[in-house]
């Protein structure tokens, strides 16, 4: 009881702290949004990074972030019509079959304002916060093609102007983009360059009058490439740096199709998201005025990084929305289909699949809204690691869930008469775009390692030198830990933030966090900065961290639900406890693998297998039917 009150209290304190000054000045919710650029203090959110040190920065994630009543009302007003539109006016089957979104559907989307969800109201957008954007994303994701078209337009396409553009650029381009009159596209990838900026070939050269750039080069796999009127293009420019040396640096440009010299190839024929337009875009002596440089000349790399980092969190909501829909569709089938006088829903293996789907949806949702809530806090907090974790977890979860749903349906899932195979095809791209999951795992692990390394360097160096004091301190700590046997990071107990019904899970989480901290320390001790080359180690580190963050999200969310008495909160507690115990064992296994000479760790063998296969570029085993005599 006291804990409940405590949670509520701390929440109200936070709300007062954060929102009171704002609400005092502006009445409506959307103005809070536009006020987000009102930077009172730059707070650096380091929740995920702190986990690398074995610390839980509980103030950041407890209580679960929530929006106030007016915002909730407003979002509900948005959600209703959008949901209606997607249920009635969007024919996903046709979009998929014809590989084109019909113009009336596009017009409908424009009328709903979905082309400018995050564009501030002053530029004609909806000015939604990240949380509200994620909420709408849940519905939009019911059609993969539309979701990708909209995301390419506003999550990356116009994001450059939004976050790095100057006032003139914003005023010139955002209103038309928000209204959907113009469609935006993001042109980064090139035939020879995926994530490697060094191999970008597109060039921008300054004209003699110094007022224009001429852009030459081709960009591939550009979503909306055929529809777009405004392109965010990244090209190499010659920049003279401080020492007077000429250097090739990347610059971001706003390019209008009307500038001329912009052509695009035929749309690619894709596996999924077939309705979205993906094609090659070629720039041939496209003349771009110098005012259209986003940020400064040579500063394109940061712009690109920021755009890519900012868009990822929304995938959690989108995937959760899709899985929730899938659960509805498949559970109906499981309840009606009878085999051996039993409905499918009575078979254990089918039940397990539904539990998996529910768990995944619950975790994704929790992670997505926790992250969105953190990003909505004042001070433009850097949540890129958290957002990357949401992306990795939800894209992989979605793939598993869609596959499981298909399995429940058996043959029905495999035919084109039903939407399930389309869901499967559509969601495969989630693991690939916006940074592949492999690359994001590297990002997640390395960012944390860098943070932890900075702090631990001194201590590790002392240990390596054989400083008796430090070693004794370490030993003492180890002895104390082994005696006390439980780890207490303050989530439960007197000033705890987790509801008692989740106390066991919280304990597991704390134990995981503590051992994660020691694991990271030993990894840094062992590998130092060469850990960059240990991709399999980093993959496990990232996996543990993703699990930890997911545990945090579900603990926080379920605690809030049970404390304020949301409907079916007992189910949430069940889901949270189940997920936490599952993740706990997975983490323990992963961390055991990370220990030195762990028998669970097969990395060396795996690398050797891969090396032998890749040397020959083929599967090299003899056929089992082969013989030598």
């Amino acid at each position, binding site marked *: 009881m006291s804990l409940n009150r405590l949670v509520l209290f701390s929440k109200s304190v936070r709300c007062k702290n954060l929102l009171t000054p704002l609400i005092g000045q502006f009445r409506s919710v959307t103005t809070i949004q536009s006020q987000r650029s009102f930077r009172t203090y730059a707070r650096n959110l380091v929740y995920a990074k702190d986990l690398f040190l074995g610390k839980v920065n509980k103030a950041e994630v407890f209580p679960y972030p929530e929006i106030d009543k007016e915002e909730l009302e407003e979002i509900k007003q948005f959600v209703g019509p959008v949901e209606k539109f997607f249920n009635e006016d969007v024919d996903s089957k046709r979009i998929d079959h014809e590989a084109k979104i019909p113009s009336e559907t596009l017009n409908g989307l424009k009328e709903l304002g979905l082309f400018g969800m995050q564009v501030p109201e002053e530029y004609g957008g909806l000015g939604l916060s990240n949380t509200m954007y994620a909420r709408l994303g849940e519905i939009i994701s019911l059609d993969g093609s539309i979701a990708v078209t909209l995301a390419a337009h506003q999550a990356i396409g116009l994001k450059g102007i939004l976050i790095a553009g100057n006032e003139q650029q914003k005023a010139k381009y955002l209103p038309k983009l928000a209204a959907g009159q113009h469609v935006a596209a993001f042109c980064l990838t090139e035939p020879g360059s995926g994530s490697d*900026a060094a191999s970008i070939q597109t060039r921008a050269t300054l004209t003699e009058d110094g007022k224009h750039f001429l852009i030459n080069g081709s960009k591939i796999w550009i979503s909306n490439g055929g529809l777009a009127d405004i392109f965010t293009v990244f090209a190499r420019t010659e920049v003279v740096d401080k020492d007077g040396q000429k250097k090739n640096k990347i610059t971001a440009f706003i390019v209008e199709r009307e500038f001329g010299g912009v052509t695009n190839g035929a749309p690619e024929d894709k596996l999924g998201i077939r309705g979205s337009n993906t094609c090659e875009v070629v720039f041939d002596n496209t003349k771009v005025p110098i005012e259209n440089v986003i940020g400064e000349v040579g500063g394109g790399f940061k712009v690109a990084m920021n755009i890519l980092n900012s868009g990822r969190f929304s995938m959690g909501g989108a995937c959760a929305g899709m899985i929730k829909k899938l659960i509805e569709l498949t559970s109906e089938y499981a309840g009606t289909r009878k085999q051996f006088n039993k409905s499918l829903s009575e078979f254990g293996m089918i039940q397990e699949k539904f539990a998996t789907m529910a768990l995944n949806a619950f975790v994704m949702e929790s992670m997505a809204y926790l992250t969105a809530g953190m990003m909505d806090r004042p001070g433009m907090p850097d949540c890129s690691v958290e957002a990357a974790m949401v992306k990795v977890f939800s894209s992989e979860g979605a793939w598993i869930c869609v596959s499981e749903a298909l399995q429940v349906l058996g043959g029905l899932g495999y035919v084109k008469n039903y939407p399930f195979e389309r869901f499967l095809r559509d969601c495969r791209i989630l693991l690939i775009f916006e940074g592949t999951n492999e690359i994001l795992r590297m990002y997640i692990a390395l960012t944390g390692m860098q943070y932890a390394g900075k702090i631990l360097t001194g201590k590790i160096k002392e240990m390596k030198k054989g400083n008796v004091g430090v070693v004794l301190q370490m030993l003492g700590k180890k002895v104390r830990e082994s005696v006390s046997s439980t780890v207490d990071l303050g989530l439960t107990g007197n000033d705890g933030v987790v509801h008692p019904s989740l106390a066991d899970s919280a304990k597991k989480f704390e134990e995981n966090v503590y051992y994660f901290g020691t694991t990271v320390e030993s990894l840094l001790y062992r590998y130092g900065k060469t850990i960059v080359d240990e991709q399999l180690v980093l993959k496990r580190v990232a996996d543990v961290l993703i699990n930890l963050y997911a545990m945090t999200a579900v603990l926080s969310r379920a605690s809030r639900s049970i404390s304020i008495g949301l409907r079916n909160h007992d189910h949430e507690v069940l889901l949270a406890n189940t997920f936490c115990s599952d993740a706990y064992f997975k983490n323990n296994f992963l961390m055991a693998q990370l220990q030195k000479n762990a028998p669970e760790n097969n990395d060396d063998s795996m690398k050797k297998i891969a090396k032998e296969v890749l040397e020959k570029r083929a599967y090299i085993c003899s056929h089992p039917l082969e013989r030598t005599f």
Partner: protein
Amino acid sequence: MNCARRLARITIRGFAPYATVTARESAKCLNPYGSGVQTLRAFHAGFGHLKDQSVSRGDGHPRHEGSLVTHDSLFEQAAVEARTKAMFNRVLEVFVRKDIRRRGHVEFIYAALRKMPEFGVERDITVYNKLLDVFPKEVFVPRNFIQRMFNHYPRQQECAVQLLEQMENYGILPNVETKVLLVQIFGEKSHPMRKYQRLMYWFPKFKHTNPYPVPQDLPQDPLDLARLSLTRVAADPDACVTVYQMPSTDVSETIVADVSLPYVVGIQSPEQRSLLAKHNASRPVFVEGPFPLWLRKTCVYYYVLRADPVPPEEKVQEPVDPERSFFYPLELDLDLERDLGDDDSFDVDEVEEGPIFAMCMASRGDQATLAKWIAGLQQTNPVLGRAPTLFRLESVSREIQRAGESEPGAEPGLEEEPPHRQAMKQ
């Protein structure tokens, strides 16, 4: 009976060691007649064997003289007609049909084994089986424990072992037919059978030990051979072979050798190309060679384009551009090195060699021919136009050349010597 008469005749000839064998052979002729006689004969045979062994240790091979001559001449007569498999088989058939007792088959088989390469059948398993078939069946199979204990019909067994050994030397794996024959001739636990089992145990195991197998029959066309050799030396699936000059002979001229264009075939991988592009043009590149490459019994020569190792003062460790990866940091800004306990690298003294930029093979190794190769390379590697090219060509020792050429199956003409090579020791 008959046997005793023959024994007497041979003893008169005074050819003692041979006598025992023939006696044993005649003994086996009697085998089918009855078990009573059989045991007696077998005992006799055992005795004979002991005697035979002591003799054979004494003087080795020359003991075959006399009867060998006739068997060799059988093959020589055949060889006059044609040295083919069919002819070889006919000789075997003639021998088998000539005498139902197959007198002198051991000598015949030794002779046949020696003649096999001449007839080009030394790698033919069916011929070996046919040769084994010359042994009379069942007579050498031990019938009791004493026979089994002692070396039963040692010369025959030794001969069969010799046959299997020749198969082994030529890398021919016995087959089921061989096994059936051996069982029929010598029984399950004879020495040839043991040899067979050892062959069958080890041969399959070693069959694929070479990770870079050379095809049994090398291509006849020198260009194809050059392609094969170059891809083998390069060992890079990305490397691409370019023919810089096709061989051609102007037949209208009287002196053909002077006007024939030598072929020039080169190989270069993209990695080598980028290495070459980074080469400092003020430093020379070297064309060196010829280096021998043995493909079974053929020796071919190749040339390399290389440079001296980059001196340490020119080696600049390019710092990783922090604005290189859009997604994750390529290196950590930490002051921590890898722990010694996790440093799995070996402490090896490494001698650095210069980079090799390309390789080529040409039918003539003179500078003019190789210059064509460099000219061809220059089209894709412009740096060659600026960097000085030095030719450091050596002559090949004639010994190697001969060894390559004298072997059957060697490519004639491939190892033809460049005119300017002097006789120099290797």
